[in-house]
């Protein structure tokens, strides 16, 4: 099957899903349909991946789409988490509907926007055009604004507004950066602009792009896409949006959207680094990364809401990934890619468990969720193991990637190691001390009318565990190819 067919299926399925569910999304069986569309997307992603592994990079549709080792692994990850989140969302949203928190009309909006959100992320990942990437990133924000405000509570409206304004303004900076990039490229690649925004073309001539313009462009691109990654000090929208929306949305925002934004930053960094021939972009990434790690670690102590707690943990982990990409070089890039994968899997698994736990307790407040282990051992163990995994306990995959990042930091940037270790320690204490009484302890929670979907939780954790012990050779090759592509150092 040619690549173009797979790409079409990959992108058309969620778009069609958005249309179909926009009409039928309120029906009783709509959550199942949502799962079906997500599964089809995932199958297309797997087929595409198999093809890339077998035949190498492809450029499609008049060079507007470009798939290489770097983005294809993110495409698969996105489609996979999209599918498991749809599985989780099925019983979760039924419970919410049963409690009258969402009406059938709102469910229709929810399912339709869920598919649209998946489509925008997949377009952002696969497009070769830096301008279209911007358009897709902005569309990803727009499709989730109304999901964050789904419950129409005052807090969710506030979160949605903050999300829109901060990400909207942030991403406007990225548009300016893209214009500057186009400006620099157009001189080399021709005014008709045929190739001037295509990443593959830019990558070929990156050594000749005007450094003064590119460094200015990078500042804007980093601030713009960095806002969506949730880098401090532009992270304010993130905890609110994660905490106030429905939990499946928290899982995909945290597990997927942040990765996609990170992907945009890295693509830009490759170009700018090639033009400047200096480590300035890397140093900027390291700075923002470290700041986010430290800030998030200390903010973790102040959280009383479980979803906000793990939202700050996402900021921390995105900081670690940004720092690792900033260091650059084969090992650090490898570790950063691995960390992107395991963070995405672990964090969404945690949100699944947290979602069920919060539904049982009828509250998101940490002090009101108690004794999960007696009430529902599987949810309790899922949350406990997920937390241990995200805190970097061996043998989970997060340990492997954090270990690689720390040892590389010791070699290349020794000054940063104590800061990272301190922040990781603080984060460990903060999260563990909050999750422990939630899992063990006295309880007063109730049973749910729909059995929780625990397969996604344990499937994710099993994958993370596997990645910690053994990375399959083809996956490792793939990470290495992507790491080499990103370069640096």
């Amino acid at each position, binding site marked *: 099957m040619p690549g173009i067919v797979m790409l079409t299926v990959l992108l058309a399925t969620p778009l069609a899903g958005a249309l179909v569910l926009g009409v039928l999304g309120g029906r009783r069986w709509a959550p199942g349909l949502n799962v079906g569309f997500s599964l089809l997307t995932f199958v297309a992603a797997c087929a595409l991946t198999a093809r890339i592994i077998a035949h190498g990079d492809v450029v499609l549709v008049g060079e*507007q789409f470009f798939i290489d080792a770097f983005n294809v692994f993110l495409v698969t990850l996105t489609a996979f988490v999209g599918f498991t989140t749809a599985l989780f969302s099925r019983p979760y949203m039924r419970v919410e509907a049963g409690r009258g928190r969402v009406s059938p009309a709102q469910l229709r909006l929810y399912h339709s926007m869920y598919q649209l959100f998946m489509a925008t992320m997949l377009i952002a990942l696969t497009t070769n*055009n830096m*301008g*279209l990437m*911007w*358009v897709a990133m*902005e*569309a990803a924000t*727009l499709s989730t*604004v*109304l999901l964050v*405000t789904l419950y*129409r*509570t*005052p*807090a969710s*409206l*506030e*979160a*949605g*507004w*903050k999300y*829109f*304004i901060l990400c*909207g*303004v942030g991403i*406007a900076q990225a*548009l*300016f950066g*893209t*214009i*500057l990039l*186009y*400006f620099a490229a*157009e*001189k080399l690649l021709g*005014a008709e*602009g*045929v190739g*001037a*925004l295509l990443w593959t073309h830019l990558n070929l001539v990156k050594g000749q792009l*005007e450094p*003064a*313009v590119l460094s*200015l462009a990078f500042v804007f691109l980093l601030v713009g896409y960095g806002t969506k990654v949730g880098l401090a000090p532009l992270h304010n929208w993130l905890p*609110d949006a994660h905490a*106030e929306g429905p939990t499946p949305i928290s899982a995909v925002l945290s597990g997927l959207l942040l990765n996609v934004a990170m992907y945009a930053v890295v693509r830009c960094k490759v170009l700018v680094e090639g033009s400047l021939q200096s480590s300035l972009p890397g140093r900027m990434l390291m700075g923002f990364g470290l700041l986010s790690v430290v800030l998030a670690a200390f*903010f973790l102590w*102040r959280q*009383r809401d479980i979803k906000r707690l793990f939202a700050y943990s996402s900021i921390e982990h995105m900081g670690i990934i940004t720092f690792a990409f900033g260091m650059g070089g084969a090992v650090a890039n490898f570790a950063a890619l691995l960390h992107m994968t395991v963070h995405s899997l672990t964090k969404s698994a945690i949100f699944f468990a947290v979602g069920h736990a919060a539904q049982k307790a009828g509250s998101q407040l940490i002090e009101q969720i108690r004794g999960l282990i007696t009430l529902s051992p599987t949810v309790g163990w899922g949350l406990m193991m997920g937390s241990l995994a995200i805190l970097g306990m061996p043998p989970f995959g997060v340990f492997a990637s954090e270990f690689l990042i720390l040892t590389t930091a010791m070699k290349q940037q020794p000054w940063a190691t104590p800061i990272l270790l301190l922040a990781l320690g603080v984060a460990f204490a903060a999260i563990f001390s909050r999750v422990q009484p939630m899992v063990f302890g006295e309880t007063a929670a109730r049973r749910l009318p729909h059995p929780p979907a625990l397969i996604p939780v344990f499937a994710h954790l099993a994958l993370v565990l596997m990645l910690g012990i053994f990375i399959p050779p083809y996956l490792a090759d793939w990470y290495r190819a992507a790491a080499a592509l990103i370069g640096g150092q």
Partner: protein
Amino acid sequence: MNALPLDLQLLNALSALLLLISFAMLSQRRIVSLINLLAVQGALLFFATVLLAARTGAGHLYLSAALTLTLKVIFLPWLLHRLIRRLDVYWDTESLLNPTGTMLVGVLVVVFSFGLAQPVSALASTATRSAIGIAVAVVLIAFLTLITRRKAISQVVGFLSMENGLFFGAMSATYGMPMIVEFGVALDVLVAVLVLGVFFFQIREQFDSLDLEHLESLKEEP
């Protein structure tokens, strides 16, 4: 002394007017006037694009001018007018904190923008390169408008004005972005305003007002 050709003089005059409108928006207190100013800004942008298209003979600039006319001069202002009428905030005004200070900051922003745009202008080969500084200034003043406002609608107008500035920047630096990107951006802007329209009704239903003072409960406790 050789004078500039007439169309370039006109273009420069238009970009100066664009900056003037930005300052007017910064100090405008009445919501309906703010929306009208946005429409005027869109119209100026339209004229500038047409002039530039005539000068360069680039077909895609005509297309992009048509897009500006329909979206920014006609459709969005109409939609916003309709929205504020439906929301019953047509004649509302808002109190600005320290307008003099804000204007002074605005002046500093212009100086800063020209400094920021200098390396880009120096490298540009377009006839309109002197306007790049103005475009940056329009973006930053729109940002200033956005952060000094407390009403949701005014913030959206600031956001749209920012997008106008970016569009003008792309035009003066490179005669516009590739068409596919411009269409994408226009689509995003359109969807953004529609989404916000829905959003306003939700805020209104919940708080009986569009003042964002009500939206200040999500903070980290000290």
